[in-house]
């Protein structure tokens, strides 16, 4: 367990840097994660994906298939890696405040 500093406040993250308490999530947290994930600027495309992931997770308590994520957000799989260098599972899900996916991820 560790913490990240978000505007002077220490927010708890797990061993892989994912948010521990989903209610800690806010735009400042996303900005802080983005800096750690080497994302220079958060665009509408990023937010579109982040918001989709959050909605999906709230409904189903799991991350969507990449297939679903791409289809629903209109973002190609390749472009996903341009937006989130760590990829959809470890990058996009982290920014969206989802817990780290279990399994061989």
């Amino acid at each position, binding site marked *: 367990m560790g913490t990240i500093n978000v505007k002077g406040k220490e927010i708890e993250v*797990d*061993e*892989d840097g994912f948010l521990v308490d989903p209610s800690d999530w806010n735009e400042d947290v996303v900005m802080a994660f983005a800096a750690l994930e080497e994302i220079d600027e958060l665009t509408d495309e990023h937010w579109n994906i982040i918001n989709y992931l959050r909605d999906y997770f709230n409904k189903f308590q*799991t991350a969507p*298939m*990449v*297939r*679903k994520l*791409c*289809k629903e957000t209109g973002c190609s*799989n*390749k472009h996903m890696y341009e937006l989130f260098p*760590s*990829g*959809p*599972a*470890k990058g996009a899900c982290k920014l969206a405040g989802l817990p*780290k*996916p*279990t*399994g*061989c*991820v």
Partner: protein
Amino acid sequence: MTEAILAANLNPGFRAEVQGLIGNFDFGNCLACGMCTAGCPYSDLIPGHDPRKFLRKLILGMREEALNDPYVWLCNMCERCTVECPMQVNIANIVRAVRGNFYDRSVIPGFLQKVVQEQLDTGNQMSVSQEDYIETLEWIEEELQEELEDPNYKIPLDKEDTDFMFAFNAREIKYYPADLQAILKVFYAAGFNYTISSKKWDATNLALFTGIDEDFYNIQRPLFEEVVRLRAKELIVTECGHAFRSCRLAYRKFWQGKTFPIRHILQLLNEALNDGRLQVKSKVTEPVTYHDPCNAVRKEGVFEEGRNVLKSFCADFRDMNPNKKFNYCCGGGGGLIAMPEFTDIRVRIKGQRKADQVRATGAKVVAVPCHNCMDQFNDITKKFELGTKNKHVCTIIQDHVVLPEKKD
């Protein structure tokens, strides 16, 4: 660190008990020479990470000390110790037997057991629904039709009497479909006659690491039954060390049905390169090195094939030192990736060995033919700022193979 051994507390039956779990292999012939500990890449980095001491505890009957030894779960079961042992004591095998027979499922570290349960409940370790599975395959198919400029391209689903059934890792469907796409493109280039099952396709098995054989075989058996149902000549397993190892181990230990070979995808690709089905169009120019996943290499003997494939496609291939059966584990083996309580040890301490090895090669690309090792490599690359890219072999070669219409 000295520990007093109290003779009165020794449990002489313990050694025989453990021995009974591993086919009565007599590890009492251990010479206590310490070559295992010398061979372990981590014994001098982590206090108590000591195969020799662990084995002594078993042999002397120090039951409580052995079962409470953090080594049981920190060991990567990589068999690096075993290649050095003059008496052929397989410590990884012993560790697995101890893990699987002396602990309740509720105390298994990390989320190992959670994933095992999901596999038992849903048939794959990421609980991918049938609908999502088929939809993702259809998507990959459409992407490939475009990429291959072949509107008739089809993924051969549930085809009977083919040369092999291909089984893979659930994460290739759920999170990394581009990896599966790269594999199927290479299969297309080689013109393989194969099939993928619509029902049972996940070859992974985290009970390899919990050591509970009941779960282990219940997870693996349906895959074998599917090979038989589709009358495939053999089973080919994706670039996933533990999935390949699980298939081979479960088959050898428990399978009583119709016989068929199980091979690693790199064995198949190497064969196809040798007989000309797979041809090299162009070479990768960046320097490439190769990681030997313990499960495929030390445990199942597949190490030349991956090298041959890479050497065929890469102009500048550089081996790590040491390599092949003497290679170091990535540090994430033995289920450690799925035990977040050990993340710091796994990445910062164990990862250091591998980071040093990679750096010494000067390679820009690391070929990592294993999903588990891949996660560890990505963590190490970040932690030690290696600046390297980690890729599966099929991802490296996918744009360098000759596609059918361009063959002579």
